[in-house]
């Protein structure tokens, strides 16, 4: 993998795909034979991130915060403790902070130095979150970034950008859309998009959901 002196430019990973597959497979063989890794454990890690942990986890937390004022208050005060009350299946760790959008303030999360992201509540980050355009612009021109997502906020709304420079992870609690009184948590969770919990989007409206 250290060999970068020939032309890799024909693939956007920075190296040809088949070559990458072969090199990664070779590395796994070495690590397995050395006794460092168990392929069955590696399968389980991949399975976890492909099928078990994703934005639905975060959406259910947000929906509960929308419907249960005591949970909302607990979540904003101490997110790991509040989420722990939901059951053992949640593995968000101890470094999570929930931040709430209001009519006065919109929160947006970035990691300018690498791509830190709340994996435990949102799963693996999308490619755009890890990309240079997002990491470079979110802290300087967040309204321009929001425009890339088709989002326009009132010009007086405070934009608060959280740069995840340590192990703390941030989960945005978007504003609850109008016209959702009496909805169940499950139904509300359908309105909570991944991007709305990063702060590059808003929760969907009932009309958008119906489309």
């Amino acid at each position, binding site marked *: 993998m250290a060999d970068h002196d020939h032309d890799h430019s024909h693939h956007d990973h920075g190296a040809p795909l088949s070559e990458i597959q072969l090199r990664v497979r070779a590395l796994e063989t070495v690590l397995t034979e*050395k006794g460092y890794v168990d392929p069955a454990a590696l399968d389980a890690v991949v399975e976890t991130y492909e099928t078990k942990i994703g934005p639905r986890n975060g959406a259910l937390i947000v929906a509960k915060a929308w419907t249960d004022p005591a949970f909302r208050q607990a979540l904003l005060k101490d997110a790991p403790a509040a989420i722990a009350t939901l059951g053992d299946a949640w593995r968000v760790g101890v470094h999570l902070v929930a931040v709430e959008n209001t009519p006065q303030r919109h929160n947006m999360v970035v990691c300018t130095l690498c791509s830190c992201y709340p994996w435990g509540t949102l799963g693996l980050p999308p490619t755009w979150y890890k*990309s240079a355009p997002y990491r470079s612009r979110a802290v300087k021109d967040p309204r321009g970034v929001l425009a890339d997502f088709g989002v326009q906020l009132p010009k007086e709304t405070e934009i608060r950008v959280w740069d995840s420079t340590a192990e703390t992870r941030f989960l945005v609690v978007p504003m609850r859309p109008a016209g959702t009184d009496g909805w169940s948590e499950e139904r509300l969770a359908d309105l909570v998009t991944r991007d709305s919990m990063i702060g590059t989007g808003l929760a969907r409206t009932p009309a958008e959901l119906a489309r």
Partner: protein
Amino acid sequence: MNGVHDMGGMDGFGKVEVEPNEPPLHEPWEGRVLAMVSALWYARAWHIDDSRYAQESLPPQVYLAASYWWRWALGLQKNLLERGLVTQDEIAAGRSLWPGKPLARKLSADVVRTRMPRGNFFREQQGPARFKPGDRVRTRNIHPQTHTRLPRYARGKTGVVELIHGCEAYPDSVVTDRGDDPQWLYTVVFDGREIWGADADPTLRVSIDAFEPYLEPA
């Protein structure tokens, strides 16, 4: 280090491009890289900040050209080689040629499925916190040659402590083999104009999480 990874405020990278209905992973090898690194973190082969530092240390043109998961793969290989956990001839051969070194523990499928939480980076405090929420602080103007989590755009800037998270392992120390050296960690918030000048969006506020050695009273 003042590397190309420290992207906050850079211009010229273009629009944010969103892939509709993007899957968590695009290629099987990406998942294998993620899983190998996760297993080696669990085995305490190295710290998460060693992984970050290995990627930051890639030549800038390699860093920028590589996809996210390919950067992970390059960082993985770098840490394995630097620690003597594998050798270059083994990577070339695609098989083990020498006995492995002992690691603290080995990740199993059972642990993944039942109890693999995210790491806990809190450490026992070494002294009282120097700052409290509401305090005005200035970030230090430092340019270490090695890993740091104080981004360039936020150096030498005045802000306000908003949150105090606790004492955590100090990345700048961890990657230079000086141990956890636990430090208080704060969320410090800056007015956008303090960072980007008088023409900045007046509604913008930016926060970083800053370890105590990054800060001085303002």
